[in-house]
């Protein structure tokens, strides 16, 4: 009876049918100029104008309050992690991640969260460790990482090596971090297609939550936002409920720029100098700027894996993806609502949070592990990131995985069976599966 009910819910939610069936219109297009990522839909002249201005704001490097003649772009910091959106999401793409041991690279932020809370930062340092500061200010701290290597073998005897990051925070200028603060390194993800993920109906998420998928048990990350209970969809742990929420949070916490939605930046009560620093206005990012940035972000298409998009990868890779159980959490298709000409997208995520096992868990300052629920990362656009970007790329929330295979090997919890299935594959099939994922 229950299964029949779920099947009906899936049909209603638009999830039934072959996961491999081609969709109708596509949200994935060729990116001819990476500096000007295209929209997935035609825009009116007014929309285009707003979007162009949004891209301008997205790319703008903000400066300290009081810089002469810089009225529209001043107010960054005084303590911050990045001075522009583009510094971390270069041309909308994901940050490349750390190449090796050393200081925390651009695009890898350290979030701070009080253990057991949804959205409470460290009592002294707030939600983001400000590793940069305006002139004459000292950053909140420095972060270095060191990789410890882990070795293992596939079932066929082939060796593998993973790198496990260890973070060291030094030079904390407002005193020590609290023992129960979770150190949460987060790589800036690509923002392509975020407006489409926003259009996935809640009923779909509820149906996926109810769907029987073997040992997989995903949950909606319910958040309270403006007094309403809504699903978290964005961020590595689905902390943000919308593109607007994610964007204004990033302006406030990562860049120190206030907006109507986030009238306070990340200065805490303990940081009196930060709280009394000169402001770039009230708010520092005006509403029309936010509107335009959202127009840019919410209309962003998803890049094809190759410029011509003539191939969809080896179908044997697709079959292995499904047979290994990857599609249980990374379903190829989701319905969207309210978008002209588009009823289905292919993000390879269920937008739910899953237990991913202890190996990926963040750590508290006192060394204890933090909760380990992660939103299923969308795989679309991965081919573009891996190949078109033509640079080194780290996968997973902190960029620790240097390849698709390494990312799979870090999976645990809900995905332990899929990891085991991947481990048992032949070298040829592992490559087929990895290559196929790398062309999404």
């Amino acid at each position, binding site marked *: 009876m229950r299964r029949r009910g779920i099947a009906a819910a899936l049909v209603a939610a638009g999830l039934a049918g072959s996961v491999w069936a081609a969709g109708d219109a596509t949200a994935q297009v060729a990116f001819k100029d990476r*500096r000007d990522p295209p929209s997935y839909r035609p825009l009116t002249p007014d929309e285009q104008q707003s979007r162009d201005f949004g891209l301008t*704001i997205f*790319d703008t490097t903000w400066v300290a309050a009081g810089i002469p003649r*810089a009225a529209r772009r*001043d107010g960054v910091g005084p303590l911050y992690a990045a*001075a522009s959106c583009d510094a971390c999401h270069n041309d909308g793409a994901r940050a490349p991640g750390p190449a090796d041991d*050393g*200081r925390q690279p651009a695009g890898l932020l350290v979030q701070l969260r009080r253990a057991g809370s949804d959205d409470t930062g460290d009592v002294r340092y707030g939600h983001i460790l400000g590793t940069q500061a305006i002139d004459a200010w000292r950053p909140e701290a420095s972060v270095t990482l060191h990789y410890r290597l882990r070795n293992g073998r596939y079932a066929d005897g082939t060796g593998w090596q993973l790198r496990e990051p260890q973070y060291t925070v030094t030079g904390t200028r407002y005193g020590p971090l609290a023992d129960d603060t979770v150190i949460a390194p987060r790589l800036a993800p690509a923002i392509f297609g975020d407006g489409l993920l926003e259009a996935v109906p809640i009923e779909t998420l509820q149906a996926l939550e109810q769907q029987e998928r073997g040992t997989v048990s995903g949950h909606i990350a319910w958040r309270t936002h403006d007094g309403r209970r809504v699903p978290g969809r964005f961020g590595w742990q689905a902390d943000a409920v919308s593109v607007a929420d994610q964007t204004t949070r990033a302006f406030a916490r990562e860049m120190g720029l206030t907006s109507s939605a986030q009238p306070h930046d990340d200065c805490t009560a303990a940081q009196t100098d930060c709280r009394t620093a000169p402001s770039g206005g009230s708010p520092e990012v005006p509403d029309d700027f936010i509107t335009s940035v959202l127009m840019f972000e919410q209309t962003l298409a998803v890049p094809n894996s190759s410029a011509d998009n003539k191939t969809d990868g080896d179908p044997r890779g697709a079959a292995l993806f499904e047979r290994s159980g990857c599609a249980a959490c990374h379903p190829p298709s989701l319905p969207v609502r309210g978008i002209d000409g588009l009823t289905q997208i292919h993000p390879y995520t269920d937008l739910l949070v899953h237990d991913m096992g202890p190996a990926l868990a963040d750590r508290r300052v006192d060394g204890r592990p933090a909760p380990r629920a992660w939103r299923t990362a969308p795989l679309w656009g991965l081919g573009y990131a891996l190949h078109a970007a033509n640079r*080194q790329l780290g996968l997973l929330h902190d960029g620790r995985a240097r390849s698709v295979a390494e990312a799979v090997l870090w999976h645990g919890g809900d995905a332990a069976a899929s990891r085991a299935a991947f481990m048992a594959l032949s070298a040829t099939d592992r490559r087929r599966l990895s290559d196929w994922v790398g062309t999404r």
Partner: protein
Amino acid sequence: MTNRSRRRPLTPLILARIAALILGLATIGAHAAAACGNFKWNVEHELTLFAGAPHVLKAATRAADAPELRPGTLYALQLAPQEQVQFPHAPSKRMLTDGAYGGLVHFKVPTAGRYRIAIDSPFWIDVVDGGKAVSSIDFGGDPSCNAPRKIVIYALPAGDDLTLQLSAGTTSTLRITITPDPTQP
């Protein structure tokens, strides 16, 4: 006079001075590496150049007036308010430029290949060849470092008169070097 006769005996005092010099150089090197250790490439050549005294030049506001930079040399460019600069090619990154500085210079490279343009503060860089912007191959930076802070890599043709556009910066001076990429194949 032979070399042997010119050599002074290594007294304990001289040995101590040599040791102190070596130790000092090693310390300076270690500090430079520690302060600028976040680049994804070896940037020792740039660090050495940026540690020297720069040639001071005024960047132009029109391409026809742009001074020429020589590869392998550190320059300190004096820039103009960006609204005064007539860029031959619109800066390829659109940004708000309130309060920004910019300028134009020319350069040529003797042999075709990959070159690094290194700067000490956050400006946007475009290399224009025959009216078209040259796509960069790679870029990297270290926000905690200003000697240099940002490096952009281009594949450049030999002998072409290239225009270097600098835009969206917040400082009226900029130190810059152009050097062959030591990692090129």
